[in-house]
């Protein structure tokens, strides 16, 4: 249908009764519905990307759990009963939801911590180390070499909380901020007798993942080698794992089956994930409903336009214009409007994704600048359904 004059005449006959205000209202309904649908898919996908994606969003997405073998009355006192073998570690690495497994190595040598002044105390201090990629935030000072008398340590955030909210108030001691704790020096006596060495330890960071005191692996290895007690097993009794979704029942079943214990409070991200999924699903359903209403309004507008042009349509059919020809004419008028609406909605979604990506960057998270495949799939499917409904309704109305 390339004859411009013919198109202009048909336009005069069939579309002159179109109400501009109704067209805008129908377009607004369709645009709002489509945009909300695409945005809800985009939000859902962005959260999935943050929670489960391959980007470096570990703090947000993965849960770190410390796993140990349960101490029972049966294995209590048995040598190596709670030790993880290489086979155990490999098996855990292949369990559902597990992304990475790290060995927690503890000291097999005596460590004695002392501090003078108003906060004076002296205590045996267990130390542990984990692979660097399991540390929450890697401090710049996190390195140690033999011969270095300054030792960086990371302590559990829980220690500071217990001190500030339990111990200090009860003993009349001052509460301490993270910064003030980092400024304190702790004397560590490592080893026994004449071979003992003294180090000046500084807290360089706090960990939400580990419930103990961490030292660099090089220091633990040095100490175990130099001061370690002969015959003490070197195999780990605790592992740290990075899990995608520890709330997965398959993962839970695995732990129960192997009689492993873990710190269940670390499942908090799973709860957040569940909330996000509920919210995005609800938004998606609402958006789907709105898009349905928008599509219905737009189709009713098309049918109303055709109904108002009924007399002209009948005459056109009587002088030889076929139903297919007239359907094609109407479809060619309305389809670009539908596609324009969808493109506009997609442009808003792309802008939304870019804004979310920039906002995520500000939070130290990584989110792609362009929407992912689910958004494009939603675009293709919704466009396909829209095109199908519009063409069907036009053909049906003209046929009638």
């Amino acid at each position: 249908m390339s004859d411009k004059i013919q198109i202009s005449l048909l336009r005069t006959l069939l579309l002159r009764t179109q109400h501009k205000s109704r067209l805008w209202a129908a377009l607004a309904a369709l645009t709002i519905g489509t945009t909300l649908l695409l945005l809800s898919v985009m939000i859902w996908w962005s959260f999935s990307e943050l929670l489960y994606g391959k980007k470096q969003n570990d703090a947000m997405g993965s849960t770190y759990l410390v796993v140990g073998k349960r101490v029972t009355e049966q294995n209590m006192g048995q040598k190596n009963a709670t030790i993880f073998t290489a086979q155990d570690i490999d098996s855990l690495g292949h369990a559902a939801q597990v992304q990475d497994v790290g060995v927690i190595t503890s000291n097999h040598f005596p460590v004695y911590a002392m501090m003078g002044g108003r906060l004076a105390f002296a205590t045996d201090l267990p130390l542990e180390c984990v692979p660097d990629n399991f540390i929450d935030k890697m401090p710049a000072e996190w390195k140690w070499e033999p011969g270095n008398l300054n030792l960086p340590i990371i302590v559990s955030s829980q220690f500071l909380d217990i001190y500030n909210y339990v111990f200090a108030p009860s003993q009349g001691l001052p509460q301490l901020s993270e910064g003030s704790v980092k400024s304190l020096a702790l004397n560590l006596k490592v080893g026994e007798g004449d071979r003992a060495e003294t180090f000046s330890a500084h807290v360089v960071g706090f960990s939400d993942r580990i419930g103990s005191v961490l030292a660099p692996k090089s220091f633990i290895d040095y100490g175990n080698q130099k001061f370690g007690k002969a015959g003490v097993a070197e195999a780990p009794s605790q592992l740290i794992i990075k899990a995608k979704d520890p709330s997965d029942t398959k993962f839970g079943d695995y732990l129960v089956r192997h009689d492993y214990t873990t710190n269940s409070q670390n499942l908090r991200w799973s709860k957040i994930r569940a909330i996000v999924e509920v919210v995005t699903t609800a938004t998606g359903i609402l958006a789907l409903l709105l898009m349905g209403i928008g599509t219905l309004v737009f189709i009713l507008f098309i049918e109303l336009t055709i109904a108002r042009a009924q007399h002209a349509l009948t005459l056109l059919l009587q002088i030889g214009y076929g139903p297919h020809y007239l359907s094609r004419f109407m479809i060619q008028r309305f389809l670009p409007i539908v596609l324009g609406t969808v493109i506009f909605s997609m442009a808003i979604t792309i802008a939304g994704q870019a804004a979310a990506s920039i906002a995520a960057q500000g939070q130290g998270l990584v989110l792609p600048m362009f929407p992912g495949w689910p958004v494009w799939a939603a675009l293709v499917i919704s466009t396909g359904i829209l095109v199908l409904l519009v063409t069907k309704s036009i053909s049906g109305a003209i046929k009638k």
Partner: protein
Amino acid sequence: MQLSLQGIIPVPLAEKVNAYQSGMWKNNRTFNKGEYVFIQAPSGTGKTTLIHILYGLRKDYTGDAKWNNISLANTDNETLAGLRTNSVSVIFQDLRLFPELTAWENVDLKRRLTNTVSEQQANEWLTRLGLNEKKNSMGATLSYGEQQRVAIVRALVQPFEWLLMDEPFSHLDHANTQKAINLIGEVVKQHGAGMILADLDENNFFAYTQTVIL
């Protein structure tokens, strides 16, 4: 293209058809391309009904009407559109012009369906029927006689094997009727087409006809 009628009785006119013994109804007849047929009958006996049946606008009849092998009672709109575009043209009694289009646009809209008649030729035909100065007038503002002449030209600007006419000169004076008859005669002859004219009385067209149905 052959037209065959097999005992047609329009359902709403069944009683009237039985009372009025017309050659139009109930008979089996065949008309061949190039044949000129004049149906002369008084008002209310179903001339327009027959034209509408032959053009595929009505299906409320018993019997059968066929263009070649196409039975009109069972034909879909797409097939009918093909017939109306390339084989069968019509001048309606009530003209059926678009009031919101000009005289020329009414003709041109039909002409552009097939583009078998040039713009110049269509213009010339309008001029021959005395519509040169009315070409750009809206259909709604034309007199019935002017509209009738526009409808005649519109029926001619397409290829056809049969031309159906339902009282096409009812509002034309003698001179304009003669002009219209001459134009229709020329174009029909060019196409080698057949004609079916339904009218109340004999007119000059009667001289052309080979078959008269009373």
